[in-house]
């Protein structure tokens, strides 16, 4: 968690320092308001424009709200995070326009959580056990995604754009690896177990499979993930110079990364990622 706070702090400092000198130039050479719009505005008379963007994205897949089966998140660490994209826009008038983008992003993180009665599947060589697991679950995820948002964009001021609209996000590669194991503490040596689900509707009433401190089992759920998810993107653009800008955006998925009838992970996992970066505006 500390690492996340650190990233946020870095982002805030970077962004907070940039506008300071930018504003000063404004003061030195006062320009009439109308000229300002021209000066910072789209470069072409037609109101078309492109932006190349590169950034760092951070976030995760999370059920909303966090289900009660997850008792304690012991570790969260982001991984990867490269985001490269291109956006095109068409301004219909001075304030309103449409924006369409394509972003290639790497979404990665790993977590370790204590779970209780967490329904899962341990799969190995095509043989699997499903059931309710109590113990430690470690998940490591690293996916490449292609996100295509279609957004309305509002030019709030000569240098500020805010855009919002739906997106589709496709998974180009899918890695969702989980590992379950027992509690490392000796006094909880017999507290971790899988209550096997025989699939006959008898529920957690049959085999109980104790995971001692050393025992672990793994599973890969990547292949079970959906092809694409949908959500809403909220994007802020700010121009540093006429051609160089900074941006921050939030992609909030409204559909789960697993199919709706998926019974290995019984709650919906929504991708939620924030990205910050720089842009070159043609």
């Amino acid at each position, binding site marked *: 968690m500390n690492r996340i706070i650190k990233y946020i702090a870095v982002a805030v400092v970077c962004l907070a320092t940039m506008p300071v000198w930018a504003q000063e130039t404004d003061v030195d050479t006062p320009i009439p308001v109308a000229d300002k719009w021209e000066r910072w505005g789209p470069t072409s008379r037609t109101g078309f424009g492109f932006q190349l963007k590169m950034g760092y994205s951070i976030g995760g897949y999370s059920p909303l709200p966090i289900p*009660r089966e997850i008792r*304690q998140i012991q570790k969260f660490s982001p991984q990867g995070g490269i985001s490269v994209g291109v956006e095109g826009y068409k301004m219909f008038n001075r304030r309103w326009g449409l924006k369409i983008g394509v972003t290639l992003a790497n979404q990665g993180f790993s977590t370790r959580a204590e779970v209780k009665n967490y329904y899962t599947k341990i799969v190995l060589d095509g043989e699997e056990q499903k059931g309710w697991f109590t113990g430690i679950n470690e998940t490591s995820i690293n996916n490449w995604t292609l996100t295509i948002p279609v957004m309305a964009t509002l030019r709030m001021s000569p240098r*500020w754009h805010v855009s919002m609209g739906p997106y589709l996000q496709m998974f180009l590669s899918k890695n969702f690896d989980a590992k379950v194991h027992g509690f490392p503490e000796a006094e909880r040596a*017999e507290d971790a177990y899988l209550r096997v689900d025989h*699939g006959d509707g008898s*529920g*957690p009433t*049959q085999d109980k499979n104790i995971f001692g401190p050393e025992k672990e089992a793994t599973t890969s759920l990547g292949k079970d993930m959906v092809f694409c998810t949908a959500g809403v993107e909220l994007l802020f653009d700010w121009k540093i110079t006429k051609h160089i800008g900074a941006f921050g955006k939030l992609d909030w998925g409204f559909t789960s990364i697993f199919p709706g009838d998926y019974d290995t992970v019984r709650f919906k996992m929504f991708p939620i990622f924030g990205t910050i970066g720089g842009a070159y505006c043609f």
Partner: protein
Amino acid sequence: MKIKLLILSLLLALSSTVLLVSCIAEAPLEIECDIEEISVQLENPLDIFDQESYATYRFLPIETKHVFSVKHNAALGSYPVYIKTSKGSTAFIVIDGEEVPFENGRLVNFTNERVQKFVIRCESGEWSKTYEVSMEHQPAYTVLTEMLITFNGNYTIQGKTSTNPGYYVWTETDPVITKNLFRAGDPVWKNGNPGFILSRGSAQPDEYPTIPVFNGGMDGSDCVELHTRSTGSFGQMVHIPLAAGSMFNGLFDSSKALNDARKATRMGVPCPHKPIRIEADLRYEPGPKFQDSNENEITGVVDEPDLYCIIYRNADENGNAVVLDGDDVLTNKHIKGVARLKHNYNMVWNEEEQRHIPEPVLTNSPIHGITNEWQHVSIPVNYDFFQTGHENVIDPILLRNRGYSIVIGSTSSWRGGYFEGALDSKLYMDNVKVVFEDPEDEGDTTLPIASASIIVDDPLALFPEEGDSIQYMEEGTTEIVFPVKWDADMTSVPLTLHPGQGYTVYDEAGKVFVSGTKVDLSKDKVLKLKARDAEGKLEIIYTVRAKFEDQPVPTILSACIKIASPLTIFNNVGDSVQTPSASNEIIFPVRWDAVVTAVPLTLNVSKWATVQDAGGNSFVSGSNVDLSDGQFHQFKVFSQDGTQTNTYKVKVKYAEQAEFTVSSFSIVVNNPLEIFKQATDSVQTANEANEVVFPVRWNADVTAVPLTIHATKFSTIYDENEEVFTSGQKVNLSDGEFHTFTVKSRFGKNTLTYKVRADIGQEPRYVFSFENGNTSSGYYTWTDANLASSWVTTNPMFKVLRTGASASECPARKDGTSVLLLETAANNSTYASMLKMRTVPGMLFNGTMDSYSLQQAMSGGLSYFQSLAHYGAPFKHKPTKMKVRAKYIPGEKYYKGNTYTAGETDSPDIYCVFYRNMGGQFVLSATDLFTHGNIAGYVRLHGSSKQVGTTWTDLEFKIETYNVDAAALADGGYSMVIGATSSWNGHNMEGAEGSKLYIESITIFYED
């Protein structure tokens, strides 16, 4: 503002992720609904159960049914039932088809072996589980001499699910087998198959470790194949790479299979028959590669099968159930007898349990003898499997009451429990036969009571020999006597009786005596029992008692002085514990300087023994004793009943004293400089003659000074009166004589004698004597080393007046060898009248005299003479006292100048004048010798109250000085004059002819 908006939005985007992972909801509701444990709680469980432990059962997670086995003749009713269920779950009991909330302690009706249903609902309400609980009578005991297990056609496939094809399960239907090898309601052979499904659930039934072989037996019927299989990657990951085929009676707790597979196998079921042999048809093919649990091949080792039959006591001394598991099935101390295929072992002696423990040895040359060809084997049950030297006793009554359990076990890899073995090792097994002892062979049971036994976990705590715990009755005797150890605690021992056919045993109150009831057979207690035959016609009274062995002689096993820091007393810590010698002497070697006036003495005595000290008082071990005298102290040990005694003697033996010295002597006072010139003088060591001398000041008060003698510790000092002298005690050293002190070492072995005295200094003084007069100038002259200037006399002047005078005619001369004689000489010269100087006084003083001219004297007269002399020389001490020894004979004719004056008597003068010399600039002259203002003090004979007689007189003058400047004194700023004259007024040319002053010496005392 816009900037803030951007930052805010970014913060929102990022922190929302953070918030998501940090908000944790309440714990989920529990979803499990197991009964973990069920127990029937009775005041006397043995009323209906064969064993106390049968009243409680721990369910396996997968189980939903339990049948309590009760005595074959127990009348069943309603009993209070207690259950422990999963956390959060709620229990219901089904009454008339309706679920009624169940509360612990509720009476549950078990009449007629009816099945009671319990429904457990989980906290979330999502799941429930229904349990069936009942009681079932054990079959009445019938003699069984053998049972045959054929594994023929009694297998089905179970555990089938949508994804798992399932596995084979063998269910016994032969009541002879189910009633003796299986728990009621659970007639299923156990093996690793249910655990294997967890690791390779997709395996086909034939791919499991334990499978049937249709018509594959030696006799053409079905047999069992035990096949060591790989567990696949899941098992490998948990270091259980293989699963050996197995078959045993008992329980398999699959929940522990992956975590602790050996603990998952709980082997054996109570059986009322004593096995003596196991037989089977066997065929074995060892797998090609023996591997360890990490799948490393171990070369040179061949896999071996296993088959065994074990009988063990199924409860411990506290009545808790004992069930063997995969860890201890062949080593548990409750095991009584073992029949097992032959293997190579190391038998390791266990001192604590007094038995050998077999440790398997892996070899390439097994000795089990099973080959790939079918063969029939027969293995006897060894009742001394652990090689204790005696056979374990099976209590027949306990046996019949199912106090022993039997395990029939087999496996394709004998080390399979430790996940070692060869994949594809195959044991084919068929027609396993267990042969039991025929109790009819035991002999006569027509006696009302055939035998009595006291079965305890550790019989040797009570009985001299294990066999003494069972007494077989002989015809005609009604006394049952258990020989027991003298210290056996027989106040509450379980008595088991084996009544004859048709007989029932009653206690004195007429109630049926239940075997296993705890009775009091302590000393002098006799238990009366009645054995009645079925018709109640015949009643025989039996007595039961314990015969205690004589008490052994009480002994002290060891003695110990336990203190926090033993090395203050002992040279070695180990010396603090001693065992008695053959003559009952306990000697603690202690340091020479040990203090043992009060040391805690612990006496470790034989059981029940008590101790008295020499005074006949009871001695509590650990009490303080005084052993300082080094003599023996007696302790008497009594047996519990006081009939036996034993006497011991305890003492300390001091080590030789390593060193004995007297290091120094000291006089310690607050201000040492009052006594000593230097503070270091207050500490002295002895010289070679053992003399100690303290140099003290001449004026020190040493009539009572504290003397400390530093000697090796524990020494004793005696003064010259042979009285004990304590260091620091005051002694009188003022006599300056030696005082003797004797120092004796601890225990008086060594003695050192010292003589101590004070060396009292002399008062500082200068003694001026006149032995060394020199006559080379024609008259006597004296010099003195202590005088800064030489002595001045009137001799030279006299020689001018009387040139021919000899030295002995001059006024200042020696009389004899050492006496100074000053004589007022007559001046008979021609100048006498011119000088108005009829006499020349005998004068002596220190100072200088100017050179002298007769002409000037004649013209200058008296004042000239008076101006010649300069009195005194610098003196750096303050004079305090002058002592003179002198005598005086006055002359007869007294002259003033030239004039004879009658009636005058001459008198001498001796003086000492101390004066300030103003930095050497000032010298006293004759006219102001006693009057000058610079004078700081003087004494003189003339005019004082002192008189010099005509015989030798000792004179002492105290010199009072005043206003003496110490710095000037040290700097030579004071001078002193010592002088003497035969005519006190001689310097005024007066005196009597022939006045003679004799002076032996002049002593000036001064301050340091």
